[in-house]
């Protein structure tokens, strides 16, 4: 199958002096594949998001999305971050509708006739994440988990082909986080799209993804590609199974070696005290 996202020997430096945020990244992601990217802090995971969405151009190499080289903002992507970044002067519903006021082809028809139609669509989406009753509330009236659900709805309202999530659940408590894993799983199962999930949470990565990429510390490189062959649909119960735990353990080990290698460079043979 033709890949939906392809990185070919990509490197990106934010400055001119040549220190790379990511380096030698080559990977491909199939259409409607759910990919998770894990790695230590500062490994350039967010840089990958900027490259995929066309917010940044690679310093070296080539990034292709949907069959063409990325040359600018793509419009077929949706994004959500750790911080829900909802607009405090808009209700939940109006927050979700924001992308439709901006992105073509919705933008042209938004003001005139289609607002009602789009509202219905947003309401349907809010309903699937359990926020229908909160559509008229303002962000500060919602809990952190609800805000994050709204943020994900905003990322999906224009039916993007590629959803990019940058640690979307990192600021939530453990129970809410697991609840939102299931929300995301169901949204993806109902209407597949390609997902790139950047996360620190290995259980989250294994539970949700088809494939997990492990990245090294800066400059970020792909250390491993790990297909997750757990049967779908996955239930939260699966996170307690031996197979799941073994997968998480494997990934943990790889990241562990990354850190050890990193540490030994900085502190050579310090005598024990």
């Amino acid at each position, binding site marked *: 199958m033709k890949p939906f996202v392809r990185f070919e020997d990509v490197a990106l430096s934010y400055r001119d002096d040549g220190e790379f945020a990511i380096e030698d990244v080559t990977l491909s992601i199939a259409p409607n594949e759910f990919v998770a990217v894990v790695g230590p802090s500062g490994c350039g995971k967010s840089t990958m998001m900027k490259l995929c969405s066309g917010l940044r151009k690679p310093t070296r190499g080539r990034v292709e999305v949907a069959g063409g080289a990325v040359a600018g903002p793509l419009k077929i992507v949706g994004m959500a971050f750790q911080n829900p970044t909802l607009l405090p002067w808009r209700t939940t519903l109006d927050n979700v509708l924001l992308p439709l006021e901006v992105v073509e082809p919705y933008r042209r028809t938004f003001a005139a006739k289609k607002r009602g139609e789009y509202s219905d669509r947003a309401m349907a989406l809010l309903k699937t994440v359990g926020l229908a009753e909160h559509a008229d509330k303002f962000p500060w009236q919602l809990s952190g988990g609800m805000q994050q659900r709204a943020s994900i709805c905003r*990322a999906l309202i224009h039916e993007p082909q590629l959803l990019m999530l940058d640690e979307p659940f990192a600021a939530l408590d453990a129970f809410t986080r697991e609840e939102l894993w299931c929300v995301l799983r169901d949204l993806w199962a109902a209407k597949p799209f390609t997902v790139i999930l950047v996360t620190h949470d290995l259980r989250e990565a294994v539970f949700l993804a088809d494939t997990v990429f492990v990245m090294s510390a800066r400059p970020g490189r792909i250390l491993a590609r790990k297909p997750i062959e757990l049967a779908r649909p996955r239930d939260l119960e699966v996170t307690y199974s031996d197979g799941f735990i073994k997968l998480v353990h494997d990934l943990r080990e790889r990241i562990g070696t990354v850190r050890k290698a990193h540490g030994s460079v900085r502190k050579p043979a310090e005598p024990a005290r």
Partner: protein
Amino acid sequence: MSWLKSTRAAPWLMTAGLLVLWQAVCSAFSIDEFIFPSPIQVWHALIEYAGPIRQHSLQTLLTTVAGFGIGVVFGLALGVAVGSSPWLYSATYPLLVAFNSIPKVAFVPILIVWFGIGTIPAILTAFLISFFPIVVNVATGLATLEPELEDVLRALGASRLDILKKVGLPRSMPFFFASLKVSITLAFVGSVISETVASNLGIGYLMMSASSSNRMALVFAGLVVVSILAMLMYVVFAWLEMRITGWAHRRGH
């Protein structure tokens, strides 16, 4: 009794207490009206000169509002420009700070040379003194936009203008209104200073001429009128702020 202890009563009680203290000091030491008039003497002056006070305070109000109006338009425009361009921000910020540290009263002689004695220097002084807080606040509101939010919109193909309209401006409205409250009171300072130095109209002029003819009670009456005008305008903008940017205050759903 409970009303007296409430925070709503507090400002009135404090004001009344200060007036009583003021009157008591003046009566106890029998201070001469030409040095320090008591509240009652000021009140008499207010009534006796009600006509001229009305005329001059109206002039001051119009002057101030005109200068403030120009300040709002100019401040908003400059604030948007400075806040949405990091280059302009770095380029103009030191200049703005330097400009703001000049005592505005120093401009009045220059303005008089350029525009003559009267209303125009007063309007311009009010403008010069009032636009700075607006520029700074609007620029800050725009410059502190969350980069993630900008990314979300830019990835959708939003132009800079889109981002400004949908996110930047609404987001900086609380900053803008907060600065209006500061600016309107500053505008009064500017217009009254200019009237004091060079005008034959306005509360500043009235106070100047009253003091030169030793009518100290009338000078104080002028002070009272200016502070009441400034407070009323402050209340207007505080009310507008609550109406328009209530979402930023989270009180009352």
